[in-house]
């Protein structure tokens, strides 16, 4: 009798351990997804913060390029006003495109092109573009891992048990990595 009792006890302990480990794995993956989403946010914010500095730099050399300046300022406003992650990414892409045209215009002004500040901004802009792409990639990778755990056995069983719902992938609409580049 005692032996059966032990077997039952060990089985229960095993089940408890498995439940806890799956609960934790789901929690860790969701945390990672949230963290990578905020990383995207951070990089987009950095891009927006670059705008005033860039406009200030370009203004000194290219006074009459008013049109592009306003479009950048508007794109920045749209980004800061965006609520959902998908909207933010979309606004971020528009801002990136606008910033690139400023850089392209800057290329026409030799003095501007030669200034350290401009070069630095160029490098910063290119690196933020990479970082946004990487942050999006990591976000989607994390979602994939979460989905795999959620849709395979026995994860699917625990996903239902803990009420872990499907989370959205980031749709990449434009500005795919390394398609367009700020020229050096």
């Amino acid at each position: 009798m005692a032996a059966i009792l032990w077997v039952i006890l060990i089985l229960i302990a095993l089940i408890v351990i498995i439940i806890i480990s799956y609960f934790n794995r789901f929690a860790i993956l969701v945390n990672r997804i949230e963290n990578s989403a905020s990383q995207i946010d951070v990089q987009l914010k950095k891009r927006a913060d670059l705008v005033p500095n860039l406009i200030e730099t370009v203004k000194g050399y290219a006074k009459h390029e008013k049109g592009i300046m306003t479009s950048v300022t508007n794109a920045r406003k749209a980004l800061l006003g965006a609520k959902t992650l998908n909207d933010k990414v979309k606004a971020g892409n528009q801002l990136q495109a606008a910033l690139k045209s400023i850089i392209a215009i800057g290329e026409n002004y030799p003095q501007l092109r030669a200034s350290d500040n401009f070069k630095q901004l160029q490098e910063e802009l290119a690196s933020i573009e990479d970082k946004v792409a990487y942050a999006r990639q990591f976000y989607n990778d994390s979602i994939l891992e979460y989905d795999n755990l959620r849709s395979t056995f026995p994860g699917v069983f625990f996903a239902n048990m803990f009420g872990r719902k499907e989370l959205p992938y980031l749709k990449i609409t434009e500005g795919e990595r390394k398609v367009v580049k700020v020229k050096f």
Partner: protein
Amino acid sequence: MEKGKHIDFRDQIARNKRNSVFLLILVFLVLIGIGWIIGKAINVDFFIFMTIFSLISIFYIWITYYFSSQIALASVGAVVADKTKYRQFYNIVEGLTIGSGLPMPKLYIMNQEAINAFATGRNPKNSVVCVTSGAIAKLNKDELEGVLAHELTHIRNYDIRFVTITAVVVGLIEIIAQMFLRSMFYSSGNRDDNKGSAIFFIIGLVLAIIAPIIVKLVQLAISRRREYMADAGSVEITRYPSGLVGALEKIKKDSKPLKVNSSVAPMFISDPAKSRIFAIFQTHPPIDSRIQILKAM
């Protein structure tokens, strides 16, 4: 290359951690063994001597574990990379850490013309990535990115812990061998410790013979699989095999050898010595086969 045998990086992490512990235990046993021989050879209280020697051994292992990366960095003459001068270096690694979810490593520069790079440290939180100034100058951004992603994969896989400890241990064996051999020449026969110095000489001789063999075994243990895995991991992060392919092709054409101690050679992305006489001494897989595999990705 073991074809068709998929190795998950999580298995590799577990293996590296286990091997690191084995290696440190082995070092402890070897040190105790040496202490035992010395203790028998010289005329002191054996028990007290062994106690002190054991404490010193534990202290040495502690140092190895916590400071091996600093020792390795110092031995190759690496310095902290300047944040403004090497802005792009920092930007690329920051991007890669975002893409891989790893913490930001410390960045170092070796002032050498050869194109090479290595990573070191005991875990991802305490890790270092070091490149030569030649790599910064000669590689374009995509190529440098491929190389740095390769190094970050070594960090993620805990290759850095095992390889760095190995490098320090191999260095120690070389030093001990030298010490014993020299003790023979410097202790002249005017004292009556002939018995002791003879034993020292024999130990030195044995170490001098087995040291290269151990180095070879270690290099084989470090195995080419690590490099292939790091290449694959690099592509996993950058999603752009052409970057690393370009870098490897430039490394292949680059004739400048890298002057570093042989014990740290396995740490680098490509063998610092451009050619080795015996294939068995090769620490890295042939660059051509690495390029071929990357191109097929």
